């Protein structure tokens, strides 16, 4: 790969290759990871994994339907929330 790109700077090439893979992963789902977290009552915010490049899907467990994860939809705007809790 370095020969084809006509470079001898290994560290720089490695940094650019990582940038290229990040660029590819931001628009194409080459490798997907998944992270599971417990939903806590009355808690709105959940931390995203630190290595997220792009979100592919978010699902919530349906315990009444054979413990299946069902994909949920994304909101475009912040909704008007009734019973807003004090987040501290």
């Amino acid at each position, binding site marked *: *790969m*370095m020969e*084809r*790109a*006509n*470079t001898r700077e*290994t560290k720089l*090439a*490695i940094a650019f*290759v990582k*940038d*290229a*893979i*990040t*660029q*590819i*992963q931001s*628009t*194409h789902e*080459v*490798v997907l*990871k*998944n*992270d*599971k*977290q*417990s*939903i806590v*009552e*009355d*808690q*709105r*915010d*959940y*931390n*995203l*994994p630190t290595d*997220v*490049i792009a*979100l592919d*899907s*978010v*699902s*919530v*467990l*349906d*315990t*009444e*339907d054979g413990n299946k994860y*069902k*994909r*949920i*939809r*994304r*909101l475009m705007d*912040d*909704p*008007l*929330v009734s*019973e807003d809790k004090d987040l501290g």
Partner: protein
Amino acid sequence: MSYDTNKNYYYKRHGKVLRLYKFRKNTLGPVDSNGRVNSANADFIYPDEAITDGLRIEYTALTKPFVDEDPETTADASLTEATSPTELSHVNLNRVLSLAVVEYLKAHMAERKGDVQAKEYFMKQFYNKLADNESNRNNVFVTIPMQPYAIR
């Protein structure tokens, strides 16, 4: 006790956190001072129940960017990550995406030399190769039966 989670839960990305909302639809709203009942009372609340491992997030990440073996010939599960990559390490991508990375490298090397036109040309090649990779995945094979009186 969660049910119809695909209809009742929604999310919104907010920086480094994901905000989770539950849609609550009541058949009857509260009776107002005039004794009227609002029948379509729906609103968003925070999750009102605890679900163990209830939230699953699927995402792309920089996973094993460099490996010791050729990823085209080795099963993905048995690939070991090259933590200190050298010139002999393999990039953990298929052939077309590896060629796209070469174009990306050429583009940034050209930029370092101040050749912006070459950089733009190689970046265009990079995106062309990404598109090629995407279209290769979406090949649809159509079989058309030959007409009985067709000239063969």
